[in-house]
């Protein structure tokens, strides 16, 4: 049976809210959750904290988080925070 991944598009202006909503849906996400970050041009400290928390929760629940459309600038921030390894990336 094919699994359909849960997908979220994160609003660039409401990153934390979007990530919190995604976190709340982890239980029903199945094995994979796709977060579309293509609208996120810059990520701030609260956004990073929310991502870190989401990653921790997803680990607990065995859900793989795929970040889709993350800009190279955002990707670099995740590398600096040593967070990139906790996600999968897709274009």
């Amino acid at each position, binding site marked *: 049976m094919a699994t359909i991944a849960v997908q979220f598009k994160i609003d660039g202006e409401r990153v934390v809210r979007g990530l919190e909503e995604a976190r709340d849906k982890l239980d029903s996400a199945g094995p994979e959750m796709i977060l579309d970050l293509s609208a996120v041009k*810059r*990520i*701030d*400290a609260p956004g*990073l904290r929310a991502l870190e928390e989401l990653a921790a929760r997803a680990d607990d629940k065995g859900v793989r988080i795929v970040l889709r459309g993350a800009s190279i*600038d*955002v990707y670099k*921030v995740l590398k*600096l*925070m040593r967070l990139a390894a906790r996600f999968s990336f897709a274009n």
Partner: protein
Amino acid sequence: MAKNLSNPTEERMAYLEGLITQAKTAAAVFAQFTQQDVDSIVKAMVLAGMEQAQHLARLAIQETRIGVLEDKVIKNMVATEFVYNYIKNKPTVGTIREFPERGLVELAEPIGVIFSLLPITNPTSTVLFKCLMAIKTRNAVIFSPHPNAWRCSSEAVRIMYEAAVKQGAPEGVFTCLESHTLEDNAYLMRHKEVAMIDATGGQGAVKAAYSSGKPALGVGPGNTPVYLEKSADLSMAVVDIIVSKTFDNGTICASEQTVVIDDEIYDSALKKFAELGAHICSDKETEILGRALFDRQTGCMQPIAVGQKATDIARVAGLTVKPATKLLIAPIQGVGREHPLSVEKLCPVLSVYRAMSTEEALRVCVDVNHAGGLGHTAVIFSRNDDAIHKFSQVINAGRIIVNAPGSIGALGGVYNDMVPTFSFGCGTAGGNSTTDNVNIYHYLNIKRMARRTPAPMWFRVPNQIYFNFNAVENVRQFPSRSTVIITNPGLEQIGHADIVRRYLPPEASVHVCVIPDAEPELKAILQGVEALNLYKADQIIALGGGSMIDAAKIMKLKYESPEADLEELAAPFLDIRKRVVQYPTEKINRCRLIAISTTSGTGSEVTPFAVLFDKEQGRKVTLADYSLSPDVAIIDPQFVMSMPRGLTADTGVDCLTHALEAAVSTYASCYSDCNAMQAIRMVFKYLPVAYQHPEEEEARSMMHNAACIAAMAFANAGVGVNHALAHAFGARFGVAHGRANALMLPHVIRYNASVPTKFRPSPNQRAYVAHKKYATIAELLGLGGRTIEEKVNSLAAATEQLLDHLAMPRSIAALGIAKEKFEQALPDLVKIAFDDPSWLSNPRMPLMSELEELFWSAYRGRGITEKGSSAVQPAA
């Protein structure tokens, strides 16, 4: 030392980790900021800092009880206004500098988290300065204030942080330890998330920073010597020294410590100091002061005296001075432990020394410099440039301040154009990594993007080349009073020299210098030079084959520049533009060189090369420089009509090898290609005819031209591995150069057309194209073949056919060289061939094993592959 300290408690570690996480997050977020974002934050911080300059100064005085309120306000203003003036227009995000002509771009990369130690002497100005540097460069900082200046330093951090965050800086970009222990500092210094330590403080802190194993900036101790030289503007110097030494009560470590005064002005200098409020100590007072200021056992300054007023210091020491005394001046008779006041005194106490000569003054300044002030700051007051330069040479100081106050001068931006700073790098002598005034560039990783620079190419040949029958008559157009014809006995005998002589202008006195027709030896060269000197020659005509023309080139060089050292000029080089040994440009004689070639092979008449035979050492020395190229080349086939068939074949194959190697050279260009390709076509067409029918004028003429055209190609593109092999083999077994080339040629074509086992670094080589070049040649010759590989094989086969036609020996074995003898020589041959610079422009970098394989191929000749061909890969 930091690494010997134990870890903080778990609770404390959690606190420190929290600071680290905040700073790390801020630094990561900051990485996304633009230059515009950064600059607007910096400006807001500067305004906030300036507004609070007095408040912070007052706090610092209240808390530390060090320094002067008014001066601390100035320091805070310098740390904001002056620093801003320096950094405001400096790019620190993305591209920061470009050097288009060099293809270089410098880009900024933030450092990340910086752990910063703060001093007690400048506890607020240093914070303002470091905060601006950090924001300008997108870094986050964790500050560790001096325990006795925590309140004022942390208040300064708070003011800057709030201004920054209000303007959009990431939260957590600055944090400040609420209190700290040495264990805290050590923990943070070692923390993996701390990228750099910036230690401004005492020697213990700086040493701990450098010992942590982290990249660190630290300032060294100071002991500023001042040379008050006799030509100085004394009034200005005295005021400047008082300004500097009393500024913030002498707490800036760049302030003056010992003034060495020339005897001629010593008394008047002290008089002026006294007139302006300095107290000149007697010998007894100097001794008392020394005892009061310094711990007799450790030799260290009493901390209680740091930044105190002169009158207070005098009172504590028990000296009686006027109430308005600004400065205590202590005459000393030497430097060292027995003269305690000769070291750093962070208070308004100044030593002076009377020097009886410039040498003595410089010596004492050096002594002071070495007594705890290496790498820091030095000052000279003088109007004598020589004295200033001498002082600057002998003193080891990152800042040498001329005719200005040491402390404020070293801060930069006020009295001079040095970079404003509150952190003085003292170089390795001061235990630091830099001598700079620490600034924004030390808070950046500067990345250098280096574009591939287009390889400079050239095409240089004599600017006058005359060709065709009777081209020799053109010698008449060159005015000369004294012409020397260099030729060999044979050519002299058959009347070639007379033909040349016939066309020389009547006013020229003509002398013929006959030298043996062999590779020129130094002895023969020097004889020729003697003749040139004797006849005061203004023109040389080289009439002969390659050896003769080479000899004339070297004679001209030695005649024009007798000091030229041929051995040195023969030094090897990789790039002619970067060669270590330059050919002489100064000439005591001027002389034109006209080259008339009497063979059709070497092309020496247009090349910048000359080979000299060193008989004593039994080796050939190759000289190469465009200054060796003849001024005029004459390609007159009448001089080759009598060439014997064997020589016709040998020289013709040499010409073909030149052209084929130049065509596939990594230095080949469209300019050299057209010559190489044309020469190849001419050789294939005319060499068999010239060989078979030596009387055929057209074939002779075309081969003579082909040799010159091929030489123009290789004079600029170079040759290749064929020549390296032929040189080694020919010299060892006494085989003529053309024949040696012929033995290697088909094998080298196949070798070069195969994918290289190893590429040689060469900016000229944009792609591997040798196989395509060979295919193009095959097409030009109409040899057939559909694929590149087929065309390469056609060319190799056609070359074999040509060599057969010329009755060239087709293997080394066919020369009668026994296999054992060849095998014995092989290691040497490989070594010599590898050292031969000829292959440097070859499209394949030959491995030693490949050179050996090529020698074996040449030994066996075509079709015999007894040893296999593992070193030669399939055709590309």
